[in-house]
């Protein structure tokens, strides 16, 4: 103890440069301290920390936090205030705009709206923050200089990646019962294969475990998983059948005949089917009832896809039109003429923004289906027979026996495919595996699983579709999902419509109320000037007082707009002044100016 105290007493004699350690009870000396810190480090880095401090200060001002928080050691916090959230990330989680200004008389409503705005902004910020913690990054493939990624073969990729990923590139040789249709379950763990000549196989494709394999001894048009991997639907020659994962026939649904294509709407528990007799039918698989049967009157239907964002079914027809259907209406919601010849395939992206179609006219077209406008049109020499979109927006198109994968088909004009691969025979079915960088291709010789880096969504949501869920978790999820099964009547083009104010009904109701009451309860009260004594209620003064409050709201808006204008004008002037100041530095050529 004694030795240490001595050392403290006379440090200056021993070493000049040594300084007493900073204590929190000492008066902090911000600027000096920082300089010291800079000098202690290497000379070359001197500027760096200072820059940092400046930046930090700037942010502090932005966030409007009070005085800088200091640590107990006396050092200032280099990153005061909450961390910055990038704008596009905030935009991603934006649910609604801020409420517009509410008139002053609705003070309770104003308070409520302010509070709810606050809460939603907090939720948005939190979600944006948590986005940073997501564990996985998306895959990618980059070629070397002047190497096209489309020339890189699957073998090269599987050699370059780790063993588990390499095992996801495989071929199943099933030449006997092909060609094959396929379907991945919603979690991406299970694969369902249906051969044209009656062969059905369920595979846990990552572990390569066969769940069941049967032959229905009939031709098969399409196969589809239902809500979980316990059941699947098979469209056979005549009827629609439902099997369980052990291959036991559960139902034969005779109401659904000659089904060619199927789509499953997972949140509605609806199986939508189209048939050779031009019927579009919806089956509620949770109760086993037919919800709607619509005669589309457009002939044989074999091109179908669903919009995952609003559960609208898109059908492609032989006259080049694509029609949009909901179970609530007997007519098509929208008819779009997309191609000169017949439509061969349709696909809609995950966000429900873009639709990609291919037709007999060998064109591949991209549409914005919110505005129903064509965005891009490409010409494929062979024409695409099958289209599929991945979760991250990669488009795979099959032309004969070649599978091509394109990137960014809607934003930039594409000239070259991202990847390409040739399978043994004509492609019959194709689908990207959810949450994996894998594309499954069913063809005449069996099934090929390809590696497409960057195709799958890297981070799944455990409560929605969890590839690693246990049986217990699946059961629990099933119960929850059934409880919040969306009623088929809620299928509309705009799924957010339910959360908006029904203005028309409100106006109607208000009108009825006015009729019943005999007066408008929401109308503004007419201003009646108070009676004042001492002759101040003469007709003239009453008129004057009336004029003072007349058109008050109008005046307010006018005032506001004029203030805004003034502000803009002022800003403009200041900017000009600055420019003048900047340009006022005399150059050598200024003397020639007149």
């Amino acid at each position, binding site marked *: 103890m004694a030795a240490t105290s001595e050392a403290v007493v006379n440090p200056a004699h021993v070493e000049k440069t040594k300084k007493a350690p900073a204590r929190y009870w000492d008066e902090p000396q911000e600027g000096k301290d920082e300089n010291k810190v800079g000098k202690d480090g290497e000379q070359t880095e001197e500027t760096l920390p200072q820059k940092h401090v400046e930046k930090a200060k700037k942010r502090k001002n932005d966030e409007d936090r009070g005085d800088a928080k200091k640590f107990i050691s006396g050092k200032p916090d280099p990153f005061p205030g909450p961390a910055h959230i990038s704008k596009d990330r905030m935009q991603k989680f934006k649910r609604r705009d801020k409420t517009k200004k509410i008139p002053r008389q609705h003070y309770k409503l104003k308070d409520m709206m302010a509070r709810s705005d606050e809460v939603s902004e907090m939720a948005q910020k939190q979600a944006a923050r948590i986005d940073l913690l*997501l*564990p996985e990054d998306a895959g990618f493939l980059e070629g070397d200089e002047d190497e096209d990624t489309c020339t890189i073969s699957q073998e090269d990729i599987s050699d370059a990646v780790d063993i588990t990923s390499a095992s996801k590139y495989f071929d199943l040789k099933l030449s006997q019962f092909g060609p094959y249709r396929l379907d991945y379950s919603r979690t991406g763990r299970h694969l369902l294969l249906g051969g044209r000549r009656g062969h059905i196989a369920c595979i846990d494709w990552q572990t390569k475990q066969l769940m069941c394999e049967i032959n229905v001894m009939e031709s098969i048009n399409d196969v589809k998983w239902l809500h979980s991997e316990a059941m699947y639907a098979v469209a056979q020659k005549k009827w629609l059948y439902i099997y369980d994962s052990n291959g036991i026939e559960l139902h034969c649904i005779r109401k659904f005949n000659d089904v060619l294509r199927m789509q499953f709407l997972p949140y509605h528990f609806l199986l939508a089917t189209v048939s050779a007799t031009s019927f579009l039918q919806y089956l509620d698989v949770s109760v086993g009832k037919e919800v709607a049967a619509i005669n589309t009157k457009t002939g044989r239907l074999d091109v179908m896809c669903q919009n995952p964002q609003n559960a609208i079914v898109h059908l492609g027809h032989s006259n080049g039109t694509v029609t949009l259907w909901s179970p609530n209406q007997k007519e098509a919601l929208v008819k779009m003429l997309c191609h000169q010849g017949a439509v061969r395939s349709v696909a809609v992206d995950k966000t429900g923004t873009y639709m990609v179609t291919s037709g007999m006219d060998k064109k591949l077209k991209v549409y914005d289906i919110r505005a129903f406008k064509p965005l891009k049109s490409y010409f494929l020499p062979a024409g695409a027979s099958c289209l599929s979109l991945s979760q991250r927006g990669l488009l795979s198109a099959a032309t004969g026996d070649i599978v091509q994968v394109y990137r960014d088909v809607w934003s930039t004009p594409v000239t070259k495919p991202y990847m390409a691969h040739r399978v043994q025979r004509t492609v019959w079915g194709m689908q990207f595996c959810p949450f994996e960088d894998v594309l499954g291709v069913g063809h005449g010789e069996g099934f090929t699983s390809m590696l497409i880096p960057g195709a799958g969504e890297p981070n799944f949501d455990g409560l929605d579709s969890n590839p690693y869920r246990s049986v217990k978790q699946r059961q629990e999820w099933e119960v929850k999902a059934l409880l919040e099964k969306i009623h088929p009547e809620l299928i509309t083009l705009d799924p*957010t419509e339910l959360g908006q104010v029904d203005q028309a009904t409100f106006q109607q109701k208000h009108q009825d109320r006015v009729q019943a009451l005999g007066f408008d309860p929401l109308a503004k009260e007419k201003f009646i000037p108070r009676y004042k004594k001492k002759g101040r209620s003469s007709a003239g003064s009453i008129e004057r007082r009336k004029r003072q409050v007349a058109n008050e709201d109008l005046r307010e808006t006018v005032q506001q707009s004029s203030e805004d204008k003034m502000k803009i004008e002022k800003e403009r002037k200041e900017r000009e002044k600055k420019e003048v100041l900047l340009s006022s530095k005399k150059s050598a050529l200024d003397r020639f100016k007149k």
Partner: protein
Amino acid sequence: MKVKVLSRNPDDYVRETKLDIQRVPRNYDPSLHPFEVSREYTRALNATKLERVFAKPFLASLDGHRDGVNCLAKHTTNLSTLFSGSCDGEVKVWNLTKRECVRTLQAHEGFVRGMVVRYCGTSFFTVGDDKTIKQWKIEAPAYGEEEEPLNTILGKTVFTGLDHHRKEGVFATCGQQVDVWDEQRSSPIRSFTWGVDSFSAVRFNPVETELLASCASDRSIVLYDMREPAPLKKVIMTMRSNTVCWNPMEAYYFTCSNEDYNLYTYDMRYLDKPITVHMDHVSAVLDLDYSPTGKEFVSASFDKTIRIFPKDGGHSREVYHTKRMQHVICIKWSADNKYILSGSDEMNIRLWKANAAEKLGVLAPRERQAANYSQKLKEKYQHHPQIKRIANHRHLPKIIYHQTREQRVMKEARRKKERNVRKHSRPGTVPVVSEKEKHVVTVVK
């Protein structure tokens, strides 16, 4: 060539041992969660349906009185004790957790008109038809001791109501006049009259503790300040008010239950127009009590129902009735905001839940979270027609159902007539009188 393919390690997503809880990685990206609104709506619909399924408000009936229950009193410091006085002068003390009577005393001859527990919770006062005010100990007399009041005051006239000051040893009675008594004295320290022959209820303001409100038989509500010799002001209405109750959280507001089937909430400062008219009962409203949060109040009516109103809502959010319950005479909202107690004509005291679908007992954290979430959902989607229909539906006894409809028809007819009169008379001669203004005759200061 640079390549990266998604390759997850299952160990990061699966629990290590069976003793762990399952891992649930979340991704809140909206594009992974389609149909946000419709799914939330479905959840809200389910929550609303479940609420109606679990709405079982009736908990217990306390029987033992040999005549109609005329007044109830809450213990000020003990949640499980309840006092009730009946029309034969008997007072019973109840233990609500055991749901049994712990003590019975013959307090008065004739009705027990009013009862109140002293703020400290050591004694309680009763007034009766025998013109006496009696003070009793809370504890039951020891073995061998006689049941005797601590104090008895013999008044000149019949007392009809009683209330105690919140902080001091002062109480007020009403009868032919409103008297303020000091506990130590046998004569009132102050007597208020305002040309009225009788009062039916008197209440101390729980916040501004020196203020009093009383209901008089001349259809008026009179306000007093205990420190002043004369009453403050009064409002005269079209019909007589039976009882009055102050809002325990907002000192200015009080609500009165009226003979004209309605309840009126007034701001003490502006008596010329009630803040809210609460309609729904189909017979005279006899009693009301505020919840301790001041957000809601419960009313008892001659139409054999109990209704719960939000403090600023014109219509009730809940109605309770049973086949056996007759005219409800007195009502109390328990101090923990969870229960409602009603005393009725047919000699029973009934215990109800204040929130019909609430689960009683300790909630697990997840249970509580789920309840809060569904509550929020119900709030968010309450205006959707389907949800509104389910949430608002209540089964009513046939008589009340028909009476409600009849009232509605009568009101509509009156309004129609007024509208026609207005249409056919000179503009401005028949002004629109709002429902609030209709029931106030005048304000006297």
